[in-house]
Protein backbone atom coordinates (compact mmCIF):
# COMPACT_ATOMS: atom_id res chain seq x y z
CA UNK A 1 0.00 0.00 0.00
CA UNK A 2 2.99 2.35 -0.02
CA UNK A 3 3.31 3.15 -3.69
CA UNK A 4 -0.18 4.32 -4.71
CA UNK A 5 0.07 7.30 -2.40
CA UNK A 6 2.91 8.97 -4.26
CA UNK A 7 1.39 8.66 -7.71
CA UNK A 8 -1.61 11.01 -7.30
CA UNK A 9 0.73 13.80 -6.24
CA UNK A 10 2.90 13.34 -9.34
CA UNK A 11 -0.19 13.16 -11.49
CA UNK A 12 -1.46 16.40 -10.02
CA UNK A 13 1.90 18.12 -10.54
CA UNK A 14 1.99 16.93 -14.15
CA UNK A 15 -0.98 19.09 -15.05
CA UNK A 16 -0.83 21.68 -12.25
CA UNK A 17 2.61 23.03 -13.24
CA UNK A 18 1.81 23.78 -16.93
CA UNK A 19 -1.61 25.11 -15.93
CA UNK A 20 -0.04 27.32 -13.28
CA UNK A 21 2.45 28.75 -15.76
CA UNK A 22 -0.35 29.42 -18.25
CA UNK A 23 -2.38 31.23 -15.58
CA UNK A 24 0.66 33.33 -14.65
CA UNK A 25 1.13 34.33 -18.30
CA UNK A 26 -2.50 35.28 -18.94
CA UNK A 27 -2.39 39.09 -18.41
CA UNK A 28 0.69 39.36 -20.65
CA UNK A 29 -0.69 37.21 -23.45
CA UNK A 30 -4.36 38.18 -23.71
CA UNK A 31 -5.94 41.60 -23.33
CA UNK A 32 -7.59 43.01 -20.20
CA UNK A 33 -11.02 41.86 -21.39
CA UNK A 34 -10.09 38.18 -21.20
CA UNK A 35 -8.05 38.68 -18.06
CA UNK A 36 -11.01 40.27 -16.29
CA UNK A 37 -13.40 37.60 -17.53
CA UNK A 38 -11.06 34.93 -16.23
CA UNK A 39 -10.82 36.76 -12.89
CA UNK A 40 -14.60 36.68 -12.54
CA UNK A 41 -14.41 32.97 -13.36
CA UNK A 42 -11.75 32.33 -10.70
CA UNK A 43 -13.65 34.35 -8.09
CA UNK A 44 -16.85 32.41 -8.77
CA UNK A 45 -14.69 29.29 -8.79
CA UNK A 46 -13.84 29.88 -5.12
CA UNK A 47 -17.54 30.29 -4.29
CA UNK A 48 -18.53 27.16 -6.21
CA UNK A 49 -15.71 25.15 -4.60
CA UNK A 50 -17.27 26.09 -1.28
CA UNK A 51 -20.77 25.33 -2.53
CA UNK A 52 -19.64 21.92 -3.74
CA UNK A 53 -18.31 20.92 -0.32
CA UNK A 54 -22.01 20.76 0.52
CA UNK A 55 -23.42 19.37 -2.73
CA UNK A 56 -20.73 17.02 -4.00
CA UNK A 57 -19.21 15.92 -0.70
CA UNK A 58 -21.98 16.22 1.91
CA UNK A 59 -24.99 15.64 -0.34
CA UNK A 60 -26.76 18.90 0.54
CA UNK A 61 -28.08 21.17 -2.21
CA UNK A 62 -27.91 24.77 -1.02
CA UNK A 63 -30.07 27.15 -2.95
CA UNK A 64 -28.96 30.18 -0.98
CA UNK A 65 -25.26 30.62 -1.49
CA UNK A 66 -25.78 34.15 -2.78
CA UNK A 67 -26.29 35.03 0.91
CA UNK A 68 -22.68 34.31 1.86
CA UNK A 69 -21.22 35.67 -1.36
CA UNK A 70 -23.28 38.84 -0.94
CA UNK A 71 -22.40 39.04 2.75
CA UNK A 72 -18.71 39.02 1.77
CA UNK A 73 -19.23 41.75 -0.83
CA UNK A 74 -21.31 43.93 1.50
CA UNK A 75 -18.82 43.41 4.31
CA UNK A 76 -16.23 45.07 2.07
CA UNK A 77 -18.65 47.85 1.12
CA UNK A 78 -19.46 48.58 4.75
CA UNK A 79 -15.80 48.59 5.73
CA UNK A 80 -15.21 51.20 3.02
CA UNK A 81 -18.27 53.30 3.84
CA UNK A 82 -18.28 53.23 7.63
CA UNK A 83 -14.69 52.53 8.61
CA UNK A 84 -12.89 54.20 5.69
CA UNK A 85 -10.71 51.13 5.24
CA UNK A 86 -8.88 50.36 2.01
CA UNK A 87 -6.69 47.32 2.75
CA UNK A 88 -7.66 44.21 0.78
CA UNK A 89 -6.29 41.96 3.53
CA UNK A 90 -8.62 43.60 6.05
CA UNK A 91 -11.46 43.22 3.56
CA UNK A 92 -10.76 39.51 3.25
CA UNK A 93 -10.55 39.08 7.02
CA UNK A 94 -13.75 41.06 7.52
CA UNK A 95 -15.65 39.08 4.90
CA UNK A 96 -14.50 35.79 6.41
CA UNK A 97 -15.75 36.93 9.81
CA UNK A 98 -19.11 38.19 8.54
CA UNK A 99 -19.82 35.21 6.29
CA UNK A 100 -18.77 32.84 9.09
CA UNK A 101 -21.20 34.43 11.55
CA UNK A 102 -24.07 34.40 9.05
CA UNK A 103 -23.41 30.82 7.97
CA UNK A 104 -23.22 29.66 11.58
CA UNK A 105 -26.65 31.19 12.28
CA UNK A 106 -28.24 30.03 8.99
CA UNK A 107 -26.47 26.69 9.07
CA UNK A 108 -27.65 25.98 12.60
CA UNK A 109 -31.22 26.12 11.29
CA UNK A 110 -30.65 24.45 7.92
CA UNK A 111 -28.59 21.37 8.86
CA UNK A 112 -31.53 19.98 10.80
CA UNK A 113 -33.05 19.18 7.43
CA UNK A 114 -31.92 17.49 4.24
CA UNK A 115 -32.95 17.30 0.59
CA UNK A 116 -35.69 19.69 -0.58
CA UNK A 117 -36.34 21.04 2.94
CA UNK A 118 -32.71 22.02 3.28
CA UNK A 119 -32.74 23.65 -0.16
CA UNK A 120 -35.89 25.66 0.51
CA UNK A 121 -34.63 26.84 3.91
CA UNK A 122 -31.31 28.05 2.50
CA UNK A 123 -33.26 29.83 -0.25
CA UNK A 124 -35.66 31.48 2.20
CA UNK A 125 -32.88 32.67 4.51
CA UNK A 126 -30.88 34.12 1.63
CA UNK A 127 -33.96 36.07 0.53
CA UNK A 128 -34.11 37.60 4.01
CA UNK A 129 -30.63 39.07 3.50
CA UNK A 130 -31.58 40.25 0.03
CA UNK A 131 -34.67 42.07 1.28
CA UNK A 132 -32.60 43.72 4.02
CA UNK A 133 -30.10 45.02 1.45
CA UNK A 134 -32.97 46.06 -0.80
CA UNK A 135 -35.12 47.86 1.78
CA UNK A 136 -32.63 49.48 4.12
CA UNK A 137 -31.38 51.82 1.42
CA UNK A 138 -30.05 54.42 3.87
CA UNK A 139 -27.57 51.81 5.07
CA UNK A 140 -27.02 49.74 1.94
CA UNK A 141 -27.76 52.18 -0.85
CA UNK A 142 -30.68 49.99 -1.96
CA UNK A 143 -30.57 49.10 -5.64
CA UNK A 144 -27.94 51.78 -6.26
CA UNK A 145 -25.57 49.71 -4.22
CA UNK A 146 -22.40 50.84 -2.50
CA UNK A 147 -19.28 51.95 -4.33
CA UNK A 148 -16.06 50.03 -3.74
CA UNK A 149 -12.85 51.81 -4.72
CA UNK A 150 -9.66 50.01 -5.74
CA UNK A 151 -8.12 48.59 -2.58
CA UNK A 152 -4.55 48.60 -1.28
CA UNK A 153 -2.85 45.25 -1.79
CA UNK A 154 -0.34 44.18 0.88
CA UNK A 155 -0.06 47.83 1.97
CA UNK A 156 0.67 49.10 -1.55
CA UNK A 157 -1.12 52.05 -3.13
CA UNK A 158 -3.29 50.91 -6.08
CA UNK A 159 -2.33 54.01 -8.13
CA UNK A 160 -4.65 55.79 -10.51
CA UNK A 161 -4.67 53.50 -13.55
CA UNK A 162 -7.58 51.29 -12.60
CA UNK A 163 -7.38 49.02 -15.65
CA UNK A 164 -3.67 48.37 -15.12
CA UNK A 165 -4.36 47.66 -11.46
CA UNK A 166 -7.18 45.20 -12.11
CA UNK A 167 -5.66 43.36 -15.06
CA UNK A 168 -2.22 42.91 -13.53
CA UNK A 169 -1.70 43.41 -9.84
CA UNK A 170 -5.20 42.51 -8.77
CA UNK A 171 -5.21 39.56 -11.16
CA UNK A 172 -2.17 38.05 -9.44
CA UNK A 173 -3.70 38.77 -6.06
CA UNK A 174 -6.93 37.00 -7.01
CA UNK A 175 -4.95 34.15 -8.56
CA UNK A 176 -2.91 33.73 -5.35
CA UNK A 177 -6.01 33.67 -3.14
CA UNK A 178 -7.70 31.30 -5.57
CA UNK A 179 -4.78 28.85 -5.53
CA UNK A 180 -4.64 29.01 -1.74
CA UNK A 181 -8.39 28.35 -1.49
CA UNK A 182 -8.17 25.45 -3.94
CA UNK A 183 -5.33 23.86 -1.93
CA UNK A 184 -7.17 24.33 1.36
CA UNK A 185 -10.34 22.79 -0.08
CA UNK A 186 -8.37 19.92 -1.61
CA UNK A 187 -6.87 19.12 1.79
CA UNK A 188 -10.27 19.36 3.48
CA UNK A 189 -11.99 16.92 1.13
CA UNK A 190 -9.07 14.50 1.42
CA UNK A 191 -8.86 14.75 5.21
CA UNK A 192 -10.51 12.31 7.61
CA UNK A 193 -13.18 15.00 8.04
CA UNK A 194 -13.74 15.06 4.26
CA UNK A 195 -14.14 11.27 4.29
CA UNK A 196 -16.68 11.59 7.08
CA UNK A 197 -18.68 14.10 5.01
CA UNK A 198 -18.73 11.70 2.07
CA UNK A 199 -19.87 8.96 4.42
CA UNK A 200 -22.75 11.17 5.57
CA UNK A 201 -23.60 11.86 1.93
CA UNK A 202 -23.66 8.15 1.07
CA UNK A 203 -25.51 6.84 4.11
CA UNK A 204 -26.63 9.01 6.98
CA UNK A 205 -27.84 6.11 9.13
CA UNK A 206 -24.60 4.20 8.87
CA UNK A 207 -22.51 7.31 9.43
CA UNK A 208 -24.36 7.85 12.69
CA UNK A 209 -23.73 4.25 13.71
CA UNK A 210 -20.00 4.45 13.17
CA UNK A 211 -20.05 7.34 15.64
CA UNK A 212 -20.20 10.43 13.43
CA UNK A 213 -22.39 13.21 14.81
CA UNK A 214 -23.89 14.15 11.50
CA UNK A 215 -25.48 17.49 12.37
CA UNK A 216 -22.26 18.83 13.79
CA UNK A 217 -20.31 17.73 10.72
CA UNK A 218 -22.89 19.19 8.40
CA UNK A 219 -22.74 22.48 10.26
CA UNK A 220 -18.95 22.64 10.02
CA UNK A 221 -19.16 21.89 6.29
CA UNK A 222 -21.85 24.54 5.96
CA UNK A 223 -19.69 27.19 7.63
CA UNK A 224 -16.59 26.33 5.57
CA UNK A 225 -18.76 26.46 2.48
CA UNK A 226 -20.20 29.84 3.46
CA UNK A 227 -16.77 31.29 4.25
CA UNK A 228 -15.47 30.28 0.81
CA UNK A 229 -18.44 32.05 -0.77
CA UNK A 230 -17.87 35.08 1.47
CA UNK A 231 -14.21 35.26 0.52
CA UNK A 232 -15.20 35.09 -3.14
CA UNK A 233 -17.67 37.92 -2.55
CA UNK A 234 -14.92 40.07 -1.05
CA UNK A 235 -12.62 39.45 -4.05
CA UNK A 236 -15.49 40.15 -6.41
CA UNK A 237 -16.35 43.54 -4.83
CA UNK A 238 -13.34 45.59 -6.10
CA UNK A 239 -13.57 43.82 -9.45
CA UNK A 240 -17.17 44.91 -9.87
CA UNK A 241 -16.58 48.27 -8.18
CA UNK A 242 -20.05 48.15 -6.69
CA UNK A 243 -21.95 45.97 -4.22
CA UNK A 244 -25.59 45.72 -5.23
CA UNK A 245 -28.48 43.52 -4.03
CA UNK A 246 -28.03 41.55 -7.28
CA UNK A 247 -25.43 39.37 -5.60
CA UNK A 248 -27.87 38.49 -2.82
CA UNK A 249 -30.83 37.60 -4.97
CA UNK A 250 -31.84 33.98 -5.43
CA UNK A 251 -31.13 33.86 -9.17
CA UNK A 252 -27.46 34.31 -8.35
CA UNK A 253 -27.70 31.28 -6.04
CA UNK A 254 -29.11 29.49 -9.04
CA UNK A 255 -26.11 30.48 -11.10
CA UNK A 256 -23.81 29.01 -8.44
CA UNK A 257 -25.76 25.74 -8.58
CA UNK A 258 -25.52 25.83 -12.35
CA UNK A 259 -21.78 26.37 -12.38
CA UNK A 260 -21.32 23.27 -10.21
CA UNK A 261 -23.63 21.15 -12.37
CA UNK A 262 -22.07 22.43 -15.59
CA UNK A 263 -18.53 21.67 -14.46
CA UNK A 264 -19.48 18.42 -12.75
CA UNK A 265 -20.00 18.23 -8.99
CA UNK A 266 -18.68 14.68 -8.72
CA UNK A 267 -15.23 15.98 -9.47
CA UNK A 268 -13.01 18.21 -7.34
CA UNK A 269 -12.11 20.67 -10.12
CA UNK A 270 -15.51 20.45 -11.81
CA UNK A 271 -16.84 23.52 -9.94
CA UNK A 272 -13.84 25.61 -11.02
CA UNK A 273 -14.18 24.54 -14.65
CA UNK A 274 -17.93 25.19 -14.44
CA UNK A 275 -17.44 28.65 -12.95
CA UNK A 276 -14.98 29.72 -15.66
CA UNK A 277 -17.05 28.17 -18.46
CA UNK A 278 -20.27 29.74 -17.18
CA UNK A 279 -18.65 33.17 -16.88
CA UNK A 280 -17.42 33.01 -20.46
CA UNK A 281 -20.75 31.76 -21.78
CA UNK A 282 -22.61 34.51 -19.94
CA UNK A 283 -20.18 37.23 -21.06
CA UNK A 284 -20.52 36.20 -24.71
CA UNK A 285 -24.27 35.75 -24.51
CA UNK A 286 -24.66 39.25 -23.06
CA UNK A 287 -22.46 40.70 -25.81
CA UNK A 288 -24.30 38.81 -28.52
CA UNK A 289 -27.93 39.68 -27.93
CA UNK A 290 -30.23 41.57 -25.57
CA UNK A 291 -32.13 38.31 -25.17
CA UNK A 292 -29.05 36.81 -23.57
CA UNK A 293 -30.97 34.95 -20.84
CA UNK A 294 -32.85 33.04 -23.53
CA UNK A 295 -29.67 32.21 -25.42
CA UNK A 296 -27.76 31.29 -22.28
CA UNK A 297 -30.64 29.17 -21.01
CA UNK A 298 -30.85 27.24 -24.25
CA UNK A 299 -27.10 26.66 -24.40
CA UNK A 300 -27.06 25.47 -20.79
CA UNK A 301 -29.99 23.10 -21.23
CA UNK A 302 -28.29 21.54 -24.24
CA UNK A 303 -24.97 21.27 -22.36
CA UNK A 304 -26.55 19.61 -19.36
CA UNK A 305 -28.49 17.16 -21.51
CA UNK A 306 -25.38 16.33 -23.51
CA UNK A 307 -23.07 16.17 -20.47
CA UNK A 308 -25.11 14.79 -17.56
CA UNK A 309 -22.01 14.51 -15.37
CA UNK A 310 -20.75 17.92 -16.39
CA UNK A 311 -17.70 18.96 -18.32
CA UNK A 312 -15.32 17.12 -16.00
CA UNK A 313 -17.48 14.01 -16.13
CA UNK A 314 -17.04 14.09 -19.90
CA UNK A 315 -13.29 14.62 -19.57
CA UNK A 316 -13.02 11.67 -17.17
CA UNK A 317 -15.01 9.54 -19.57
CA UNK A 318 -12.76 10.46 -22.51
CA UNK A 319 -9.59 9.81 -20.51
CA UNK A 320 -10.91 6.41 -19.45
CA UNK A 321 -11.71 5.65 -23.09
CA UNK A 322 -8.25 6.69 -24.27
CA UNK A 323 -6.60 4.49 -21.66
CA UNK A 324 -8.52 1.46 -22.84
CA UNK A 325 -8.63 1.79 -26.62
CA UNK A 326 -10.70 -0.75 -28.46
Amino acid at each position, binding site marked *: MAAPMQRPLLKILAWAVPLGLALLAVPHVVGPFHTLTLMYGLVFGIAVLGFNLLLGYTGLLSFGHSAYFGAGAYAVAFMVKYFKLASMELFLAGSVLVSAVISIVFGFVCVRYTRIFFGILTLALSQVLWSLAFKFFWVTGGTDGLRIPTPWLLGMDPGTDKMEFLAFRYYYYVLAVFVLCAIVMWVIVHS*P*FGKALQAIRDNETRAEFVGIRIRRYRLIAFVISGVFAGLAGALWAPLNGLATPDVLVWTFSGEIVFMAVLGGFHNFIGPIVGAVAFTYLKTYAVGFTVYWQLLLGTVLVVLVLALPRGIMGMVEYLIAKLRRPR
Partner: protein
Amino acid sequence: MSLLSTQAVAKSFGDNRAVNNVDFTVRQGEVLALIGSNGAGKTTLVNLISGLYRPDSGRIDFDGRDVTSQSSYERIQAGIARSFQLVNLFDQLTCLDNVALSIFSREGKTLKLATLASRDRAVWDEALEVLRQFGLDGKAAVPAGGISHGERKLLDVAVAYALKPKLLFLDEPTSGVSTREKAPIMDIVSAIVRSGGITVVIIEHDMDIVFRYSERIVVMHQGAILADGAPDEIRRNDQVTTTLLGTHVTGEAA
Protein backbone atom coordinates in the same frame (compact mmCIF):
# COMPACT_ATOMS: atom_id res chain seq x y z
CA MET B 1 -20.80 -11.72 34.35
CA SER B 2 -23.34 -9.78 32.37
CA LEU B 3 -22.16 -7.20 29.88
CA LEU B 4 -25.62 -5.93 29.12
CA SER B 5 -28.87 -6.22 30.99
CA THR B 6 -32.28 -4.71 30.55
CA GLN B 7 -34.78 -4.53 33.36
CA ALA B 8 -38.46 -4.40 32.43
CA VAL B 9 -37.91 -2.30 29.32
CA ALA B 10 -41.07 -1.52 27.42
CA LYS B 11 -41.83 0.28 24.19
CA SER B 12 -45.21 0.82 22.56
CA PHE B 13 -46.11 2.12 19.17
CA GLY B 14 -49.68 3.30 19.53
CA ASP B 15 -51.66 0.37 20.95
CA ASN B 16 -49.02 -2.13 19.97
CA ARG B 17 -46.74 -3.12 22.83
CA ALA B 18 -43.72 -4.01 20.70
CA VAL B 19 -41.53 -4.77 23.71
CA ASN B 20 -43.36 -5.65 26.91
CA ASN B 21 -41.32 -5.43 30.16
CA VAL B 22 -38.39 -7.45 28.92
CA ASP B 23 -35.51 -8.58 31.12
CA PHE B 24 -32.74 -9.45 28.71
CA THR B 25 -29.16 -10.27 29.64
CA VAL B 26 -26.06 -10.74 27.54
CA ARG B 27 -23.07 -12.34 29.21
CA GLN B 28 -19.51 -11.29 28.56
CA GLY B 29 -17.97 -13.18 25.63
CA GLU B 30 -20.97 -15.23 24.54
CA VAL B 31 -22.51 -15.62 21.09
CA LEU B 32 -26.21 -15.25 21.64
CA ALA B 33 -29.00 -15.69 19.12
CA LEU B 34 -32.16 -13.64 19.39
CA ILE B 35 -34.95 -15.35 17.51
CA GLY B 36 -38.67 -15.02 17.02
CA SER B 37 -41.21 -14.58 14.27
CA ASN B 38 -41.69 -11.30 12.45
CA GLY B 39 -43.13 -8.71 14.80
CA ALA B 40 -41.91 -10.53 17.91
CA GLY B 41 -40.04 -7.39 19.04
CA LYS B 42 -36.44 -8.41 18.30
CA THR B 43 -35.52 -5.42 16.23
CA THR B 44 -37.33 -3.03 18.57
CA LEU B 45 -35.38 -4.48 21.49
CA VAL B 46 -32.11 -3.98 19.60
CA ASN B 47 -33.13 -0.44 18.68
CA LEU B 48 -33.82 0.27 22.36
CA ILE B 49 -30.43 -1.08 23.34
CA SER B 50 -28.53 0.74 20.58
CA GLY B 51 -30.27 3.99 21.49
CA LEU B 52 -32.32 4.51 18.35
CA TYR B 53 -35.49 4.52 20.49
CA ARG B 54 -35.97 5.57 24.10
CA PRO B 55 -37.82 2.99 26.21
CA ASP B 56 -41.20 4.04 27.67
CA SER B 57 -40.11 2.49 30.94
CA GLY B 58 -37.42 0.21 32.32
CA ARG B 59 -33.67 0.44 32.58
CA ILE B 60 -30.69 -0.59 30.48
CA ASP B 61 -27.24 -1.27 31.94
CA PHE B 62 -24.18 -1.74 29.80
CA ASP B 63 -20.68 -2.52 31.02
CA GLY B 64 -21.57 -1.64 34.60
CA ARG B 65 -23.26 1.66 33.81
CA ASP B 66 -26.85 2.83 33.44
CA VAL B 67 -27.15 3.88 29.79
CA THR B 68 -30.94 4.27 29.67
CA SER B 69 -30.80 8.00 29.02
CA GLN B 70 -27.67 7.98 26.85
CA SER B 71 -27.79 8.93 23.19
CA SER B 72 -26.90 6.40 20.52
CA TYR B 73 -23.66 8.32 19.99
CA GLU B 74 -22.66 7.83 23.64
CA ARG B 75 -23.52 4.13 23.46
CA ILE B 76 -21.34 3.71 20.37
CA GLN B 77 -18.50 5.37 22.29
CA ALA B 78 -19.19 2.99 25.18
CA GLY B 79 -18.75 0.02 22.82
CA ILE B 80 -22.10 -1.00 21.31
CA ALA B 81 -21.99 -1.51 17.54
CA ARG B 82 -24.40 -2.99 15.03
CA SER B 83 -24.66 -4.23 11.51
CA PHE B 84 -27.83 -3.90 9.48
CA GLN B 85 -30.40 -6.29 8.08
CA LEU B 86 -30.74 -4.08 5.02
CA VAL B 87 -27.15 -3.35 4.17
CA ASN B 88 -26.09 0.20 5.05
CA LEU B 89 -22.79 1.11 3.44
CA PHE B 90 -21.08 4.15 1.99
CA ASP B 91 -21.69 3.08 -1.58
CA GLN B 92 -19.56 5.63 -3.42
CA LEU B 93 -16.57 5.09 -1.13
CA THR B 94 -14.25 2.12 -1.60
CA CYS B 95 -14.51 -0.96 0.60
CA LEU B 96 -11.25 0.12 2.22
CA ASP B 97 -12.64 3.60 2.91
CA ASN B 98 -15.76 2.08 4.48
CA VAL B 99 -13.71 0.19 7.05
CA ALA B 100 -11.14 2.98 7.49
CA LEU B 101 -13.92 5.37 8.42
CA SER B 102 -14.86 3.21 11.40
CA ILE B 103 -11.23 3.27 12.52
CA PHE B 104 -10.90 7.05 12.09
CA SER B 105 -14.11 7.45 14.05
CA ARG B 106 -13.06 5.01 16.78
CA GLU B 107 -9.80 6.90 17.23
CA GLY B 108 -11.62 10.24 17.34
CA LYS B 109 -9.88 11.50 14.21
CA THR B 110 -12.86 12.36 12.01
CA LEU B 111 -12.81 16.03 12.97
CA LYS B 112 -9.28 16.45 11.63
CA LEU B 113 -9.57 18.54 8.50
CA ALA B 114 -6.06 19.90 8.01
CA THR B 115 -4.29 16.59 7.41
CA LEU B 116 -4.62 14.17 4.52
CA ALA B 117 -6.41 10.97 5.47
CA SER B 118 -4.00 8.98 3.29
CA ARG B 119 -1.09 10.01 5.53
CA ASP B 120 -2.38 8.01 8.48
CA ARG B 121 -0.69 4.77 7.51
CA ALA B 122 -1.66 2.87 10.67
CA VAL B 123 -5.37 3.35 9.96
CA TRP B 124 -5.09 2.08 6.38
CA ASP B 125 -2.96 -0.89 7.41
CA GLU B 126 -5.52 -1.86 10.00
CA ALA B 127 -8.40 -1.34 7.55
CA LEU B 128 -6.72 -3.59 5.02
CA GLU B 129 -6.11 -6.19 7.72
CA VAL B 130 -9.80 -6.15 8.64
CA LEU B 131 -10.75 -6.59 4.97
CA ARG B 132 -8.28 -9.45 4.75
CA GLN B 133 -9.90 -11.18 7.74
CA PHE B 134 -13.27 -10.90 6.02
CA GLY B 135 -11.80 -12.13 2.73
CA LEU B 136 -12.53 -8.80 1.07
CA ASP B 137 -8.98 -7.50 0.57
CA GLY B 138 -9.29 -8.19 -3.15
CA LYS B 139 -12.09 -5.62 -3.29
CA ALA B 140 -10.29 -2.95 -1.26
CA ALA B 141 -10.26 -0.38 -4.08
CA VAL B 142 -13.74 -1.18 -5.41
CA PRO B 143 -16.63 1.13 -4.41
CA ALA B 144 -18.90 -0.59 -1.89
CA GLY B 145 -21.78 -0.14 -4.32
CA GLY B 146 -20.01 -2.38 -6.82
CA ILE B 147 -19.60 -5.69 -4.96
CA SER B 148 -21.93 -8.69 -4.68
CA HIS B 149 -24.73 -8.91 -2.13
CA GLY B 150 -22.93 -11.56 -0.08
CA GLU B 151 -19.80 -9.41 0.00
CA ARG B 152 -21.87 -6.42 1.03
CA LYS B 153 -23.32 -8.36 3.96
CA LEU B 154 -19.77 -9.21 5.05
CA LEU B 155 -18.57 -5.64 4.60
CA ASP B 156 -21.51 -4.42 6.66
CA VAL B 157 -20.30 -6.62 9.52
CA ALA B 158 -16.68 -5.57 8.90
CA VAL B 159 -17.58 -1.88 9.26
CA ALA B 160 -19.19 -2.56 12.65
CA TYR B 161 -16.35 -4.88 13.70
CA ALA B 162 -13.71 -2.25 12.89
CA LEU B 163 -15.17 -0.09 15.66
CA LYS B 164 -13.76 -2.74 18.05
CA PRO B 165 -17.00 -2.89 20.01
CA LYS B 166 -17.51 -4.76 23.27
CA LEU B 167 -20.96 -5.80 22.14
CA LEU B 168 -21.85 -6.37 18.50
CA PHE B 169 -25.38 -6.79 17.21
CA LEU B 170 -25.65 -8.63 13.91
CA ASP B 171 -29.09 -8.02 12.44
CA GLU B 172 -29.73 -10.96 10.11
CA PRO B 173 -26.19 -11.19 8.75
CA THR B 174 -27.24 -13.68 6.06
CA SER B 175 -30.63 -12.32 5.01
CA GLY B 176 -31.12 -12.20 1.27
CA VAL B 177 -28.10 -14.42 0.70
CA SER B 178 -28.39 -17.74 -1.12
CA THR B 179 -28.44 -20.84 1.09
CA ARG B 180 -25.12 -21.92 -0.36
CA GLU B 181 -23.45 -18.65 0.69
CA LYS B 182 -24.86 -18.55 4.21
CA ALA B 183 -22.50 -20.97 5.92
CA PRO B 184 -19.30 -19.46 4.45
CA ILE B 185 -20.39 -16.01 5.62
CA MET B 186 -21.22 -17.27 9.11
CA ASP B 187 -17.95 -19.24 9.29
CA ILE B 188 -15.97 -16.08 8.58
CA VAL B 189 -17.97 -13.90 10.96
CA SER B 190 -17.99 -16.39 13.81
CA ALA B 191 -14.25 -17.11 13.51
CA ILE B 192 -13.47 -13.40 13.66
CA VAL B 193 -15.68 -12.54 16.60
CA ARG B 194 -14.50 -15.55 18.58
CA SER B 195 -10.83 -14.79 18.01
CA GLY B 196 -11.48 -11.14 18.90
CA GLY B 197 -13.34 -12.10 22.07
CA ILE B 198 -16.30 -9.94 21.06
CA THR B 199 -19.68 -10.52 22.61
CA VAL B 200 -22.22 -11.00 19.86
CA VAL B 201 -25.99 -10.95 19.59
CA ILE B 202 -27.24 -12.41 16.30
CA ILE B 203 -30.77 -11.80 15.14
CA GLU B 204 -31.53 -14.54 12.67
CA HIS B 205 -34.40 -16.33 10.98
CA ASP B 206 -32.48 -19.27 9.65
CA MET B 207 -32.72 -21.96 12.37
CA ASP B 208 -29.85 -24.02 10.98
CA ILE B 209 -27.55 -21.06 11.47
CA VAL B 210 -28.97 -20.26 14.89
CA PHE B 211 -28.41 -23.77 16.24
CA ARG B 212 -25.02 -24.13 14.64
CA TYR B 213 -23.36 -20.84 15.57
CA SER B 214 -24.88 -19.69 18.86
CA GLU B 215 -24.11 -20.73 22.43
CA ARG B 216 -27.36 -19.48 23.88
CA ILE B 217 -30.73 -18.70 22.36
CA VAL B 218 -33.32 -16.20 23.50
CA VAL B 219 -36.75 -16.61 21.92
CA MET B 220 -39.09 -13.65 21.70
CA HIS B 221 -42.81 -13.82 21.06
CA GLN B 222 -45.31 -10.97 21.05
CA GLY B 223 -42.98 -8.53 22.73
CA ALA B 224 -41.91 -10.84 25.57
CA ILE B 225 -39.23 -13.45 26.14
CA LEU B 226 -40.70 -16.89 25.66
CA ALA B 227 -37.63 -19.01 26.33
CA ASP B 228 -33.95 -18.67 27.11
CA GLY B 229 -31.39 -21.45 27.07
CA ALA B 230 -28.75 -23.50 25.30
CA PRO B 231 -29.54 -24.60 21.72
CA ASP B 232 -30.42 -28.12 22.85
CA GLU B 233 -32.85 -26.93 25.50
CA ILE B 234 -34.55 -24.66 23.00
CA ARG B 235 -34.82 -27.50 20.52
CA ARG B 236 -36.57 -29.61 23.16
CA ASN B 237 -38.84 -26.80 24.40
CA ASP B 238 -42.38 -27.72 23.26
CA GLN B 239 -43.73 -24.23 23.68
CA VAL B 240 -41.05 -22.87 21.38
CA THR B 241 -41.46 -25.54 18.77
CA THR B 242 -45.19 -25.05 18.53
CA THR B 243 -45.20 -21.26 18.49
CA LEU B 244 -42.14 -20.71 16.43
CA LEU B 245 -40.36 -23.57 14.82
CA GLY B 246 -43.35 -25.58 13.67
CA THR B 247 -42.85 -29.20 12.80
CA HIS B 248 -39.59 -28.69 10.92
CA VAL B 249 -37.20 -28.87 13.87
CA THR B 250 -39.25 -31.36 15.89
CA GLY B 251 -39.06 -33.69 12.96
CA GLU B 252 -35.33 -33.19 12.71
CA ALA B 253 -34.83 -33.82 16.45
CA ALA B 254 -36.90 -36.99 16.36
